């Protein structure tokens, strides 16, 4: 079974540019989560999809961040325009939405550097 995949693994952009991160969850996982770790800080929740619906977006920092999950499969996280403080590692995780197995499986992350 393939794990959670994220693309790109690393992105370097200039302040004011746009970047789109992609996450492919484990097949059959209806839950998809985005997290972010800023240098030296804890991993923080951004938002949670159940299928294509946003269940919880309480962690989204501002309206420069837009997440989508069309068709309930892969998800994208767009940052537009990027600011210096957006630098960090963006993790995606997926899990089942019901049943006995509830743990979240994480992807390798996308390291975003805004210069």
């Amino acid at each position, binding site marked *: 079974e393939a794990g959670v995949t994220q693309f790109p693994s690393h992105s370097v952009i200039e302040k004011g540019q746009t970047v789109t991160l992609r996450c492919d969850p484990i097949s059959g996982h209806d839950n998809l989560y985005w997290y972010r770790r800023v240098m030296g800080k804890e991993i923080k*929740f951004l938002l*949670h999809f159940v299928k294509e619906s946003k269940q919880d977006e309480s962690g989204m920092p501002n309206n420069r961040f837009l997440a989508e999950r069309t068709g309930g499969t892969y998800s994208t996280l767009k940052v537009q325009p990027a600011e210096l403080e957006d630098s960090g590692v963006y993790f995606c*995780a997926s899990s089942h*939405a019901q049943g006995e197995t*509830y*743990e979240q499986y*994480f*992807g390798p992350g996308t390291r975003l550097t805004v210069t």
Partner: protein
Amino acid sequence: AQSVTQPDIHITVSEGASLELRCNYSYGATPYLFWYVQSPGQGLQLLLKYFSGDTLVQGIKGFEAEFKRSQSSFNLRKPSVHWSDAAEYFCAVGERFQKLVFGTGTRLLVSP
């Protein structure tokens, strides 16, 4: 508010020595508790989880954790550390099928 405290930012242990990583949490209800590990260049890997039942939980790679409700703790242990255990370890708390709240992580260094 939910929070997780990992008081040790860095820990160095000798190979073969025992290890204990501390985790304290603040949570309103009975939480789901997790330990994840991140090796260099890798994603987060689940070591073990706890919600109910036996308070001593066995995980992968020889790790175990003990839930102590009275102390709001979920400490991770390993009796004998291997050089390949050098990584960053994260304690997390949450509810079933909901977001996780993470601690700041503990970086483990293993000396020969």
